C-alpha cells in the first residue's frame, strides 16, 4: 500500500516544471488577447524535447509507454503556467489509437516523436439514462448523435474540440451500426473542416469539426477503450486545473502576507484567510481525486469513469473559486490586465464549459452510483426464471 508519487513521477513533474519555467507563458496569453496572435509561442518543440507527445504511446511504437497518472502530472505543470501547448487533444488521441497499436504502428511512431500532431474528436459515452453516444451543440444544452461512421467514412459535426486546429490527424469517435467506433482521418482530407474558434482564453485551442464523408482508417477499439479517451480528457483537464489552482493559491498567499490594510496584513483577516484555506482545501481534494483517476486509469479500469468524473467535478469547482479569490485578494488591480489573475480567470471559465463541464461530470458520478446500486439490488434479488 503506497498512495504517493513514485520517484520517477516526481522527476517527470520536476522536469516539466523546469522546462516550462523558461517560457513566459502568461505574458504570451496577455499578448495574444491584445490581438498579437504571434505572441503565443510555439511550445510544440518544447513538448517534443520533453517527450510528452509519446507519453501514452506504447514503447513498441517509440513512445514512453507511461500511464494516465503521468500524463495528468504533466498537465498539472502545463496548467500551472497556462501553457498553450496542444498536448491534451494529442495525448487522448494516442490513448485511443493505442488500443489498436499494431494496425497504427507507423502513425503512432510519428505521433510519439511529435513529428505529426493528433487530436481526438470525442463523444460522450452513454450513461444509465441515455443509451447514445452524443456530442454537444455549438450553443445551448442540446446533444446530438455522435458522427456516423459508414464503411471507412465518417460524417457529422463535433464542436469545441480541444486542440483540433493545426492537428495533422483527427481520431474521430462516432457510431457505426449503433456501436461506438473510431476512425483516423487526415485533417487535410477534403471532407474535413476545422473551424478555429479559440477565444476568451487565448491559450486554449479549440475547433468546430465538420466531417462530410471524410475517409479514414478504422481503429479497432472496444467501447471501453473508446470511452477511455473521454475520461482521460476529464482527468487531464482536472490536472490542468490543479496546476492553476496551486499557482493562484501560492500567489494569493504571498500577496496576502505583504499587503496591509488598516494596519494589518490582509492575510491576518479571517475573511481572507478562510477563503484561502478554502482554495487549499479544494486543491487538496482535487489532488487526491487526480491520483485516484490516474491510479484507476492505470490499475482499475472499471473505476475510471467515476474517478475521472469526480476529479473533473472537483477541478471545476476548485479552479473557479481559486481564480475568483486570486482576483479578489488582489483588490481592484487583480481584475485588470496589469495582473495575471484575469488570465487564470479566463482559463477557468472557458475550461469549465468544455466536454460537459462539472455538471455533466457530476451527473456521471451519480449515474455510476445508480448503476452500481441497481446492479447490487439485482445481484441480491433471488434468481428467478
Amino acid at each position, binding site marked *: 500500500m503506497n498512495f504517493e508519487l513514485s520517484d520517477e513521477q516526481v522527476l517527470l513533474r520536476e522536469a516539466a516544471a523546469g522546462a516550462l519555467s523558461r517560457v513566459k507563458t502568461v505574458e504570451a496569453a496577455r499578448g495574444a488577447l491584445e490581438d498579437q496572435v504571434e505572441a503565443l509561442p510555439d511550445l510544440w518543440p518544447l513538448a517534443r524535447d520533453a517527450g510528452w507527445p509519446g507519453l501514452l504511446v506504447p514503447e513498441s511504437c517509440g513512445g514512453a509507454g507511461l500511464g494516465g497518472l503521468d500524463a495528468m502530472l504533466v498537465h498539472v505543470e502545463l496548467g500551472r503556467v497556462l501553457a498553450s501547448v496542444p498536448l491534451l487533444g494529442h495525448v487522448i488521441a494516442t490513448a485511443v489509437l493505442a488500443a489498436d497499436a499494431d494496425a497504427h504502428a507507423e502513425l503512432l511512431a510519428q505521433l510519439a516523436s511529435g513529428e505529426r500532431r493528433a487530436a481526438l474528436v470525442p463523444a460522450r459515452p452513454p450513461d444509465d439514462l441515455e443509451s447514445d453516444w452524443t456530442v454537444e451543440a455549438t450553443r445551448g444544452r442540446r446533444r446530438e448523435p455522435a458522427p456516423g461512421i459508414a464503411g471507412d467514412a465518417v460524417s457529422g459535426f463535433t464542436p469545441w474540440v480541444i486542440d483540433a486546429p493545426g492537428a495533422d490527424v483527427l481520431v474521430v469517435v462516432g457510431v457505426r451500426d449503433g456501436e461506438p467506433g473510431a476512425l483516423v482521418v487526415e485533417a487535410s482530407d477534403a471532407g474535413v473542416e476545422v473551424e478555429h474558434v479559440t477565444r476568451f482564453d487565448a491559450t486554449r485551442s479549440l475547433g468546430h469539426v465538420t466531417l462530410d464523408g471524410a475517409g479514414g482508417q478504422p481503429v479497432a477499439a472496444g467501447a471501453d477503450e473508446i470511452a477511455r479517451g473521454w475520461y482521460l480528457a476529464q482527468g487531464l483537464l482536472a490536472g490542468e486545473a490543479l496546476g492553476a489552482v496551486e499557482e493562484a493559491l501560492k500567489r494569493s498567499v504571498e500577496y496576502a502576507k505583504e499587503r*496591509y490594510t*488598516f494596519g494589518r496584513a490582509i492575510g491576518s483577516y479571517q475573511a481572507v484567510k478562510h477563503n484561502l484555506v478554502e482554495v487549499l482545501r479544494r486543491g487538496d481534494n482535487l489532488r487526491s481525486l487526480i491520483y485516484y483517476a490516474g491510479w484507476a486509469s492505470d490499475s482499475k479500469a472499471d473505476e475510471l469513469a467515476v474517478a475521472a468524473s469526480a476529479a473533473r467535478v472537483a477541478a471545476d469547482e476548485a479552479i473557479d473559486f481559486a481564480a475568483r479569490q486570486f482576483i479578489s485578494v488582489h483588490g481592484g488591480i487583480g481584475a485588470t490586465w*496589469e495582473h495575471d489573475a484575469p488570465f487564470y480567470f479566463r482559463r477557468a471559465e472557458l475550461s469549465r464549459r468544455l466536454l460537459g463541464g462539472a455538471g455533466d461530470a457530476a451527473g456521471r458520478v451519480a449515474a455510476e452510483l445508480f448503476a452500481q446500486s441497481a446492479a447490487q439490488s439485482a445481484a441480491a434479488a433471488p434468481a428467478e426464471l
Partner: protein
Amino acid sequence: MDLSDTPEQAEYRAKVRSWLEDNKSQAPTVVGDRIEPEVVDARRAWQRKLAEGELVGITWPTEYGGQGLGPLEQVIANQEIGRAGVPGIFDIIGVGMLGPTIIAHGSEEQKHRYLGPMLHGDEVWCQLFSEPAAGSDLAGIQARSRQQDDGSWRVSGQKVWTTNAQFASFGLMMTRSDPDVPKHKGLTMFVVPMDAPGVTIRPLRQISGDAHFNEVFFDDVALEPGSEVGPVGGGWGVGMTTLMFERVTIGLGGEGFGWRSDRFAAAIGGDEEARRDPEVRRRLGHIASQFLALRFTGYRTLTALQRGQTPGPEGALGKITTVNAAIEAGELLADALGPDALEDDEWAGLISELPGIKTAGGTEEILRSMVGERVLGLPPEPRLDKGIPFSELRSKEVAAA
C-alpha cells in the same frame, strides 16, 4: 402600500414625459457600454439638453441651477428617461456625487465657478480618491499635497479606478497634507484641473478587455491657492459626504446595474433543453428572486428617503446582493449556453466584469464588517492603526513587505 403616484407626482411625471416626447428625437442612441470620444460628445450634448428640460440636478438647490425637488421626482425622471429609451445624464459622478459635495463643503467661489458647467455637461468631473495601496482602507492614501509659501499647493501621487478621467475637466482629489498625524486627520480635498501640467492619464484594461477605468499620475502638479474643498486637514469628512451621496445615487438608480431577470429568461428560454432543465429553472428562479428583492427594497428605501431619512449603512447589503446575483446569473448563462456565452455581446460584460466589480467601492468583506458594526452593533475588530501617525504606520508596512 401603494406604488402609484400622488396627483402632484402624476403631474410631474406627465410634464417630464411630455418634454421627453418632444425632445427625444435629439437623443443619441447608445449601444453597449463602450465609451468612444464621439459617443461622449453626443452624451454631453444630450445632458445639456436634459438640463434645459430641467432634468439634471433635480435634487440640487435652485440657487445652484437645480430644481430643488425630492428623491421621488428624481426617480420619476429616471423612470421616464428609461421608458423613453433615451440615455440619462452622462456625468452621473459629477452631478450625483461631486456637485453635492461642493454644495456642502465648497467655497462660494467654487460653487459659482464649477456647478453650472457641471450641470450642463460642459465640464465633466472625476473622483480622485482610491489609490493602489488605499482601496478598502481609504484613509490610507499617500498622494501628497504641500502648501507653498505663496499659499499655492503642489500635489504628487497616483490615483486609480478613475472613471471618466480621460474626458474630465476637473477632479475632486483626496490628498495627504500632513503625514505626521493619525491617518484620518491629515487629509485635504482639492479641485484639480485635469489638464494641469504633470497630470498623466493611463487607461486600465479590465478582464473583459474594456477600459472603463484609468490610473492617474500626479507629478508635482501646481494648484492655485483656494483649490482646497473644505478645511485643510478636513478631507476625510468631505470624502464621507461624497460617499453618502454615492449611496443615494445608487439607491435611486433602480435595479442593480441594469441587469434584469427577464433578459436572462429570454436568453435561456431560447434554448429548449435549458428551459426544461429543472436545475436551470431553479437557478434562474433563485436569481430572479434576488433581483426582485432588490427592486422592492428599492421602493422601501425610496419611501424612507421621501420621509426625509438618509440612507443608512444597510444600503451596502443591496450592493452585495446585486453583485452576487449577477455573478450567479453569469454562471448560469455560461452553463446553460456554453462557451459561446463567454464572448457574447450581451453577456460577456456580466461574466467578465463582475469579479472586478465585486472588489470595487469597498470589498464585500469591508461592507459586511461595516454593516455588522453599524447596523447590528457588533464589536469592531481590534484596530492596530488607531491614533498612530500615518508616517509611522507606513514605515511598518514597508518593513513587512
